[in-house]
C-alpha cells in the first residue's frame, strides 16, 4: 500500500519532467538548444487555464496549452533558426518574456498577479485491472499519464526509426550533409522546436490541470530539471523518461521521508544529490549532437 502510494507520487511528479525532456531530446537532436522549456511550460499552463476557463472544457484547455506551446516554440524557432541568433540568449529571453507575459495576462483576465480562478481539470478514467490498485490505480487512469507513456514510445520511434527522425538527427550532427541531399535544414530544425514546444505546453497543462488553476511562476524550475534529465538520458526519449522517473522518485522519497527521523536539510538535497551521482558515475559518457547550438548558415557552409 505504502509502496503503491510512493510509486503514484513518483509518477505524478515525473509527468511534467518527462513531457518536457522528451521535447528537449527532439529539438536538441535537431541541433537546437531549447532552454526556453521553462517559459514554454509556463505559457502552456496559463493557456490551459484560459482555454478551460472560457469553454468550461478541460480538453479545450489541453488544445490551448499545445497551441500556446507551439506558438512560444515558434518564437524560439524564428529567432534561432530563421535569424540564427544565439540559442541560449533566445531561450533566456523567452523565459523572462513568459514570466512577465503570464503575470500580465493574469492581472488582465483574473485581476490577480498571483492566481487564476478555479477551472475544470481532466477526468480520471477507471482502467480495468490496474484501476483497482490503491493509490496507483487513479494515477494510471489519468489521461495525461497514459498520453505521456504513449508519447515517449512514439517519440523514440519517431527519432530513431522513422525517416523524419533520421533526417532531423542529420541536422543536429552534420546539417551541411543534409543540405547536400537537398533537404531544408531550417524546416527540419523548426519542426523539432515546434514539436518540443507542443510537448512542453502539454507539461504545463498537466501542472495547471492538477491544480485546477494557474499560479504565477508555478513551473518552479521544472523546465531546467527536464533539460538535466534529457542529458542524463543521453538525448534519447526512453533514457530521458527513465531519468525523469528517477528524479520523480527522489522527490517523492524526500516528501515521504520528511517529518521522520532524517534531518530535513539532507532530505531537501536528495533530488539534486541523485542527479549529481547519476551524472558523475552511472551513465558513462554522454555526447551531445555534434552541431548542437550552432546556427546553420547556408552561405558559410
Amino acid at each position, binding site marked *: 500500500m505504502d509502496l503503491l502510494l510512493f510509486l503514484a507520487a513518483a509518477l505524478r511528479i515525473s509527468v511534467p519532467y518527462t513531457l518536457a525532456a522528451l521535447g528537449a531530446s527532439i529539438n536538441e537532436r535537431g541541433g537546437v538548444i531549447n532552454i526556453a522549456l521553462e517559459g514554454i511550460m509556463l505559457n502552456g499552463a496559463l493557456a490551459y487555464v484560459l482555454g478551460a476557463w472560457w469553454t468550461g472544457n478541460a480538453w479545450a484547455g489541453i488544445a490551448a496549452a499545445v497551441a500556446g506551446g507551439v506558438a512560444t516554440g515558434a518564437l524560439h524557432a524564428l529567432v534561432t533558426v530563421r535569424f540564427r541568433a544565439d540559442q541560449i540568449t533566445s531561450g533566456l529571453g523567452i523565459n523572462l518574456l513568459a514570466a512577465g507575459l503570464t503575470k500580465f495576462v493574469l492581472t488582465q483576465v483574473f485581476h490577480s498577479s498571483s492566481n487564476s480562478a478555479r477551472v475544470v481539470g481532466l477526468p480520471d478514467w477507471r482502467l480495468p485491472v490496474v484501476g483497482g490498485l490503491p493509490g496507483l490505480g487513479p494515477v494510471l487512469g489519468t489521461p495525461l499519464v497514459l498520453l505521456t507513456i504513449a508519447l515517449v514510445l512514439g517519440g523514440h520511434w519517431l527519432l530513431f526509426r522513422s525517416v523524419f527522425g533520421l533526417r532531423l538527427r542529420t541536422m543536429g550532427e552534420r546539417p551541411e550533409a543534409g543540405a547536400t541531399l537537398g533537404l531544408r535544414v531550417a524546416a527540419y530544425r523548426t519542426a523539432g522546436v515546434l514539436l518540443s514546444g507542443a510537448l512542453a505546453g502539454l507539461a504545463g497543462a498537466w501542472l495547471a490541470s492538477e491544480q485546477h488553476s494557474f*499560479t504565477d511562476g508555478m513551473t518552479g524550475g521544472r523546465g531546467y530539471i527536464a533539460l538535466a534529465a534529457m542529458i542524463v538520458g543521453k538525448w534519447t526519449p526512453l533514457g530521458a523518461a527513465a531519468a525523469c522517473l528517477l528524479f520523480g522518485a527522489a522527490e517523492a522519497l524526500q516528501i515521504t521521508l*520528511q517529518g521522520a527521523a532524517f534531518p530535513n536539510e539532507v532530505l531537501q538535497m536528495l533530488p539534486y544529490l541523485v542527479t549529481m551521482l547519476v551524472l558523475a558515475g552511472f551513465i558513462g559518457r554522454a555526447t551531445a549532437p555534434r552541431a548542437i547550438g550552432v546556427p546553420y548558415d547556408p552561405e558559410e557552409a
Partner: protein
Amino acid sequence: MSPRRLAAAAALAAAVALPLACSQPASRAKSPAAGAPLRVGLVFDVGGRGDKSFNDAAYAGLERAKRELGIDFVTLETGEGNDREAAMRQLAAGGSQLVFGVGFLFTDDIRNLAKEFPDVKFACVDYTLQPGDTLLPNLVALKFKEEEGSYLVGALAGLLTKTHKVGFVGGMEIPLIKKFEAGYRAGVQKVCPRCEVVVKYAGTTGSAFKDPTKGKELGLSEYHQGADIIFHASGSTGLGVFEAARELDRLAIGVDSDQGDEAPGHVLTSMVKRVDTAVFDLIRDTRAGQWQGGVRVFGLAEHGVGWVYDDRNRGLIPAPVKAEVDSLEREIVAGRIVAPDQ
C-alpha cells in the same frame, strides 16, 4: 547590428519591458505642501496583488486609510528579480512620506534605505530582527505573534482530529515559518497530548511559497500518513494543500487571510494575520503625529492575529470546542499561557 543580433536584442528588450508594464507608475511629485494628505507608498511581496492573502490584506489596510483618513497612496509590484530596493527607492525619492515593504524579504533593503533617506519614514511587515539590531528612528518593524494564532488553530485541530494525527505544511524553512509550526504544535499538544503532528516543508528558497504542485504532493503525503487536518503556512504552495483536501475529502486550515473560499467545505478555519490592521494603525498614528520608530508587535491582545469562525465553518466546529479555544485565547491574552515561537 546584424539581423540576428537585432532579433535577440528585441526579444530581450520585450522580456524586460513587460513585467515593468504591469506596475503602476509612481508619481514624481516632490514633498507636498502643508495640509496636503499624507502620501504613502507600498511595495508588494512575492505574489503581488490578488494573492487573496498577505498582499491583499496590506492593500485593504491602505484602502481603509484612504477612505477613513483621506491619504494618498501609490503601490508598486516587483518582478522576479531583486528590484525591491529599486521600487522602494523610487517611492522614497518620489515624494512618499511613509513607505511600506510587505514581507521579510525587504528587511536588508529597507534597513539601508532608512539610512539613506532619513526624512522618509519606512515600515516593514515581518521585518527580520537580527540579534543586536537597533532600528533607526525612521524605521518601524511590524511583527506579528503568529505563534499565538497558530496555537489556537492547533488546539482546534487537536480537539477535532479523529485520527489523533494532524499535519503542518510549511513553505520556506525559516524561523518565521517555524513560529507557525511551534505555536501550532504546542496548541495541539495542549488539548491532545497523545496526538502526533506530521511536519513537512516545501523547500529552502523563496519559490517554496509559490509551488502549488509541490504543496499538493506534501498534502497528499500527510493525509495518506494518517493526518485528517492540515495547517499550511506556505503562501500559494498551500493552494495545493487545499486541492489535496478536496481530492481526499479531508480538512485544511488556511493562513494569513480567510481562505474559506479556496475549498468550500474543506477549510476548517484560517489563522489570520491582520496585516490590514497593522498598516492602517501605523498610517493613523503617523498622520496623528505619533510616529515612533522601533518594533511594533501585533498579537492576540492587539487583534493582530486570530482565527476565522463564521457561517461557513460553524457547522464544522461544535460549540463546546469553540468555547474551549476561546478560553485558551483568554489565557494567552492574560499572559497565563505563553505560545512558544520556536
